[in-house]
């Protein structure tokens, strides 16, 4: 594995807090499959680009914690769940389609100072 994905929950702590809205993201994986590794990498990249300092990524390996699957109604692997801000959004797949992820998470580019709370 080029980039190790921890099989335990991995938390990327926010690098800054400026009173802006916090993003809690959860990535469900099942073992270190290429798709899961890819998804994590893509997610990290997108978050750094759009949500620098305001996000948390929790990686849950269902092979280790199968009981957690039903809580977020996980069927597909990998699945990204946006827990905060509401409403809950789910994006499935290895997140190669960045545009879809951005649209799906309702992200606006960080270059704009003010984000609409849509």
């Amino acid at each position: 594995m080029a980039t190790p994905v921890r099989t335990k929950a991995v938390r990327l702590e926010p690098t800054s807090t400026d009173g802006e809205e916090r993003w809690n993201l959860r990535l469900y994986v099942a073992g270190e499959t290429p798709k899961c590794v890819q998804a994590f990498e893509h997610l990290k990249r997108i978050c750094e680009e759009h949500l620098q300092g305001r996000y948390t990524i929790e990686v849950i390996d269902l092979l280790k914690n199968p009981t957690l699957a039903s809580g977020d109604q996980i069927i597909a692997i990998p699945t990204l769940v946006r827990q905060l801000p509401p409403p809950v959004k789910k994006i499935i797949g290895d997140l190669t389609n960045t545009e879809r992820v951005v649209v799906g998470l309702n992200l606006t580019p960080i270059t704009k100072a003010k984000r609409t709370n849509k």
Partner: protein
Amino acid sequence: MTGLTGEAARSTGAPPSIEKTPSGISGFDQITGGGLPKGRATLICGGPGSGKTIFAAEFLVRGTELGEPGVFVTFEESVLDLTRNVGGLGFDLNRLRAEGKLAIDYVHLDPSEIEEAGGYSLDGLFVRLKHAIEAVGAKRIAIDTLEVLFGGLKDQAVLRAEIQRLFRWLKETGLTAVVTAEAGEAGELRLTRQGLEEYVSDCVVQLRQSVSDQAATRYLRVIKYRGSSHGTNEYPFLIDETGFSVVPATSLQLDYPVSLERVSTGIPSLDNMLGGEGFFRTSTILVSGSAGTGKSIIAANLANATCARGERCMVFAFEESPAQIERNMRSVGLDLATWQARGLLQLRATRPSFYGLEMHLVAMHKAIAAFSPRTVILDPISSFMSAGTAHQVKAMLVRLFDWLKMQGVTGLVTYLTNSVTREETDVGISSLIDTWIEVRDLEVAGERNRTLYLLKSRGMRHSNQVREMLISEKGVTLADVYFGHDGVLLGSAKAAEERKRARDERRAEDEIARKERLLELKRDIIEAQIAALRAQYAAEEDETRRIIQDTRRSHEAQRTDRQSMAQVRTELGSPLGNGAGRS
């Protein structure tokens, strides 16, 4: 299982046959000759409300009863909804979950909150299934309805590949699976909307609901069963408070056991007509007749006799309510309420139009199986004519009668005939009947009277006489009928005839007595005459004998005289003595 059909028996007899596991669903295991293919998946397809979920739920619940824990994967209903819905069928899913015999996983897919961005697998689902299976040590799994995935996920190619992988995986786990699927549109070649039958190829069962004449009937059909023969017909089934029941009713064989045991009809004089002993047990009896001829009363007497023997009896009434039957029969001296209270008699009233014929059959089947009576009465079967065509009614009755015979049950059915067809039932069931009693109204001299006769009674000596059926508060009696100059005499005409005959008889007896007296007199006279004649004769005889004696004596004297005279002459010198002869 004695009721196995021939095809099923063959499949179980073949050595390399597929291993089956009983579904536990009443009747289904008989159709399939043992149940579902063990360790394989079975596809249950059907339209909305056809009973797929219930089939799946019962499969699991019965499995727990057979010591096989199960997993229910529900895509459509939440755990709470599912528990509630099948709770009405007597399945307590909460208890089974608490006992660790059942796991339910509600897999919810909301397409509006899911975005697809790149390749994925359904490992999440696999993980959940695996977890649930391991949690209870499942031997069975039900998936209801997998097709929801098609609505929730866009990438059909991935989906199909994953579903294929799912079924392969299920097979590897060795679980017996039931997978439900929405039926395909009418006219489509595919059985299911998403063509799931491509993945589940071991056993496919179709559920269907058909409405004819506003009466709905549920049907089940085994479309495919790889490696096993199976009944291919559509079997009616019922879903009620105890779950699913399928009637494997189309019996093609005539191999039911027969009984030589006889059971009383409850009417002693009718027993007498039937060789003195009544019906054969397990025979099928038809009582036909026009309205108000007492068919139900004959039926009720059989019910009464059955209960009096301490056996259970079940009456299906299609025209009267139980209370009404009970009251009416009280008027002819039958206390049915007591038997009901003692649990020996069950009266079930249903309107024929309440549901389709097949449903009636299934309902009766089920009720009989639950109560296990020795006698079953259907009163009257002619009312089924409103629920189907003659052919359908006959088909249903054939199956019912066959089944009753298989169960060793005596069946009595009544049939309301109209005055035109008389000895002919509209449904043409006469050939199925062992003993046929016809009750008929005869209108003579301004009154209607009931007559009863036996059209046939297979396998026993039976009376060919027409009897008059007399119904009173004491019960039913059958009396001989009179044949007068104008035919059969009944009722008051019969009473008049009886009196007339009695009068005639008395008169004849008087006449005979008189003649006998006359004869005696004559004999006395003649005897007196004989005595007189005898006396006369005796006197005459006496007289005659005396005369004969006298004559003989005088003759003797004369001869003596002549001899002495001849001697005298010889002494006088006549050598020839001729003179003596001439003198």
